[in-house]
């Protein structure tokens, strides 16, 4: 199933084959005009440059790593959390009773998991994005807990963290980090999902101009039943620059203690049943003016930033879940006998394990690459990458859980095994934090906007009939058709890829170049009306996700070989099979590699690759 999906995707990525080499100078001509852009785009993230047919290799190569002290630090956090999740969390009970027991919550609080990213001065753990991702791997073992924690810190208190004033931080963060207060994020309304214009909740300023009165109701609020603190978005009247009164969205910190807040009955959900989701309504709830996050009327930006920054951790969560599934399923496949053979000896079962290992590998690579990019100094905009990680890992997770369940056959379908719970729990990944459809639009349109800005002048010249530009285009097309070699600098003299992987790095370069010209072509054809072409945008997003996944995998395995991580040969095989699925529609038969991957996984009954954060020295 996954293979099908990958093949389908890879078809969309399938580009013309490059046959021979010529016109090396042509390449230089192509890259020359872009050089100016690269200079002032120092802190541009990787994905946007792909739209221009360029590889911003400084961003992705070498694969980001953390220092030895940090690694020790994170390992010291991971061990007790892992112990807690394996020994004290009873996921079956949580799912059955639709409630996380208080002792479990207390345990989480004691471990500091309610303030992973809150700076230490406010009593949090103060961990980086990379370390947050690492913890996410373990937390995801129980969907309900993962969602409760994510609602609390990935979106609930994020507003205070990124846009709050010092006073607000000092007042609220310590209690939030300790878990004394639980946060929630209130944006969605019955008539408004992504549409800001249909937000109905209103905040009206009182006559003494000291408090706002909140009125309205919000739905599907995670933790809404017991949250003590909420980030609420409401309309406020703002006088614009031209003196016209306008309704704009403002973010508020609302304490339950302010009064006038009622929570509805918890929703009865398909999965993540232990998490609390309900309606929250505000009836003349008084909020002091100092509780406005950012400026009045600036809520839209706050909401967007919170949403965009919360997504990257889903990649590591997905891989953590799949790794666990591989262990559980491998045990069954190794012990169940049919016709005198273990299940693990059957090719079709082996293929399922290969699929799971591949997906976990890609997700892990993407998640830590993105987390590493986000942890760089400066304010890199990684929302595009984060969205890609979310889309890929939610879909991959869904497929892998279903494959794991399939290995067990009918047993997997019963409640005696946890697979059905995993299946139900992970279905939400495709829906929340922006549905995958909306994220695909975001991915494609953000890139198109970026590329469009830069290419507008050129395309206009071409449409005007500028012979020079037209000839340049024609020459490039001709070059492509004749099989000009693309060199984007991944390999060769100042290459960043291990020579052993140079072949497929070349393929990646060709694909990126072709993607660039496709984008240019699309902009030429549709201009700004590309917004209407959702199916084209979907393909663009899929291609981009594949290219990013490919880069992540390439970068990671290149590092693994270079520094000699344990089992890096396994990574290389994984890398090859993934390349062939993601990048070019190859007639090569992958059976041997698939069997090899599965054999290693099934022999050890675990996911064999070493962790991307591991170091050898």
């Amino acid at each position: 199933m996954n293979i099908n999906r990958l093949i389908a995707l890879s078809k969309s990525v399938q580009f013309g084959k490059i046959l021979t080499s010529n016109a090396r100078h042509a390449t230089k001509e192509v890259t020359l005009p872009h050089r100016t852009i690269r200079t002032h785009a120092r802190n541009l993230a990787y994905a946007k440059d792909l739209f221009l047919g360029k590889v911003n290799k400084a961003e992705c190569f070498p694969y980001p790593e953390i220092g030895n002290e940090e690694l020790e630090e994170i390992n010291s956090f991971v061990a007790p959390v892992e112990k807690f999740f394996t020994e004290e969390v009873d996921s079956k009970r949580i799912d059955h009773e639709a409630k996380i027991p208080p002792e479990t919550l207390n345990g989480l609080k004691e471990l500091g998991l309610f303030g992973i990213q809150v700076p230490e001065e406010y009593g949090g753990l103060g961990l980086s994005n990379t370390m947050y991702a690492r913890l996410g791997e373990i937390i995801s073992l129980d969907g309900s807990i993962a969602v409760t924690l994510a609602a609390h810190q990935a979106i609930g208190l994020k507003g205070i963290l990124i846009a709050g004033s010092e006073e607000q931080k000092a007042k609220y963060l310590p209690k939030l980090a300790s878990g004394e207060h639980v946060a929630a994020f209130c944006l969605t309304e019955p008539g408004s999902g992504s549409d800001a214009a249909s937000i109905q909740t209103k905040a009206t300023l009182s006559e003494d101009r000291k408090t706002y009165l909140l009125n309205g109701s919000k739905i599907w609020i995670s933790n809404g039943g017991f949250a003590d603190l909420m980030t609420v978005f409401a309309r406020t009247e703002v006088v614009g620059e031209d003196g016209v009164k306008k309704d704009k969205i403002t973010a508020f910190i609302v304490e339950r203690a302010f009064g006038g807040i009622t929570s509805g009955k918890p929703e009865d959900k398909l999965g993540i049943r232990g998490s609390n989701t309900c309606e929250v309504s505000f009836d003349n709830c008084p909020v002091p003016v100092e509780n406005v996050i950012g400026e009045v009327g600036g809520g839209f930006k706050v909401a967007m930033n919170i949403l965009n920054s919360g997504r990257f951790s889903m990649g590591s969560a997905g891989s953590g879940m799949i790794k666990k599934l591989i262990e559980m399923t491998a045990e069954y496949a190794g012990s169940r006998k049919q016709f005198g053979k273990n299940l693990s000896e059957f090719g079709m079962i082996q293929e399922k394990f290969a699929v799971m290992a591949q997906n976990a590998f890609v997700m892990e690579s993407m998640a830590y690459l993105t987390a590493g990019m986000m942890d760089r100094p400066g304010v890199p905009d990684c929302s595009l990458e984060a969205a890609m990680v979310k889309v890929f890992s939610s879909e991959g997770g869904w497929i892998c859980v279903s494959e794991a369940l399939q290995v067990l056959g009918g047993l997997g379908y019963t409640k005696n095994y946890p697979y059905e719970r995993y299946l139900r729990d992970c279905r939400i990944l495709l829906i929340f934090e922006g549905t995958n459809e909306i994220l695909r639009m975001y991915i494609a349109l953000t890139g198109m906007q970026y590329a469009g800005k830069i290419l507008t002048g050129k395309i206009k010249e071409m449409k005007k009939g500028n012979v020079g530009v037209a000839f340049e285009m024609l020459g490039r097309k001709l070059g492509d058709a004749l099989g000009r070699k693309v060199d984007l600098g991944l390999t060769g003299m100042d290459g960043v890829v291990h020579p052993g992987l140079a072949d497929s790095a070349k393929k990646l370069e060709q694909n990126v170049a072709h993607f660039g010209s496709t984008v240019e072509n699309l902009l030429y054809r549709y201009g700004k009306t590309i917004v209407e072409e959702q199916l084209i945008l979907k393909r663009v997003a899929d291609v981009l996700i594949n290219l990013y996944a490919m880069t992540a995998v390439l970068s990671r395995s290149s590092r693994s070989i270079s520094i000699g991580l344990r089992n890096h040969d396994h990574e290389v095989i994984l890398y090859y099979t993934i390349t062939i699925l993601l990048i070019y529609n190859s007639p090569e038969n992958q059976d041997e590699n698939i069997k090899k991957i599965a054999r290693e996984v099934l022999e050890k009954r675990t996911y064999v690759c070493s962790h991307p954060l591991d170091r050898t020295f």
Partner: protein
Amino acid sequence: MNCARCLLRLQSVGFLAPSVRAAVQHAALLQPATALSQITAHNTCGQALRRFHGSPGCYKSQPVPTDPGEEHEDRIKKDKSLITHDDLFERVAREAKTKATFNRVVDVFSKRDIRRRGHVEFIYAALKKMPEFGVERDLTVYNKLLDVFPKEVFVPRNFIQRMFNHYPRQQECGVQLLEQMENYGIMPNVESKVLIVQIFGDKSHPMRKYQRIMYWFPKFKHANPFPVPLQLPEDPVDLARLSLNRIANDLDAKVTVYQMPCTDISESGEEITFPHVVGIQSPDQMELLAKHNPNRPVFVEGPFPLWLRKICVYYYILRADPLPPEEKVEESYDPERCFDYPLQLDLDLDRDMGDDDSFDVEDVDEGPVFAMCMTSQGDQATLNQWISGLQETNPTLGRVPTLFRLEAGPRELQGVADPGPGYREEGEEEAETDIVVEEEHQCSQGVKQ
């Protein structure tokens, strides 16, 4: 399969009963005696039939009237034959024109003469009388008529017969029968096929006709995306409901009955009939109406005809003029509209000409239609009732000036069915008036060779 088995059985019967065949042959020999009357009767029936391209030899075998005396005699005979068959129907018709009586006539004819003398004329006459008896859409009756043809006689028995037009008049008659079925949209069944094979053989013209019908009819059966039900409701309110839903073509649209038809006796003892008023409006239309500028009038227009099979009904609409270009407000783009992705790109590039397929001749700016209604009485008073009913759900309508632009409307349409203009007073016409249009069954080409 069933059909094939029937045919097989048939053939075996044919082989097993040579005596029958002999008898039929004998009958065929006697044919010339009646042939004359048949031809002439047929020619003067007023049916312009296309003949098959028969070989001249074929025609030669037919007796052709040569001298005037004979012609005179023909006329008498012809008249006789016509009278005979039409008369049969006429006589029965005096009691009741039903399927049963029609069948009885056919039975009487079939039993009267074992040789079925004059069956071609009879079938022609019967075909003509079918609508009168209301059996023009009844497949069993057509099969019964087909059954009137003597079996086996017209089946060619050697290659020469097969090559030339064997018994052309009988074949033509068979084709005519199928043609009438086609015109009424009746699809023959296996029984018809078996009968045709029995009568004319499996490569005859009627068989070809049958095959063509069976080729095209299933293809066209669901060609109409908006099929009209075969049985239209009798009740005018139900009919209005159906037709309004048909016009609106919007599943969200809601039909409201503003007034049920009823009769009341006033104090002065006069009988007052209240016409039915049924309207339809969709949520989109309500939204449009709510947005309508109250300074611009809305119009009640009509009546407009709507044909449902043979019934014509009339409807009225509530509409406004299209907005003049200066009043059109482009919805401005709010960059803070969508939390997740840009709804518009900030680019100075438009769609390329090659991909610009926005031009559409059907996209004419006609102004919005806010609601539609049907009533049996299209005067202003009745329509006012509809408008006041609409005001309950559309409060804006109370503030908008409403103009009635009603036309005399259906009069000229009525002219088709009823001779003389002014047959009905304006506003008195009934929406559910049945106008039965003589479906002109032109004799289209019987067989395309």
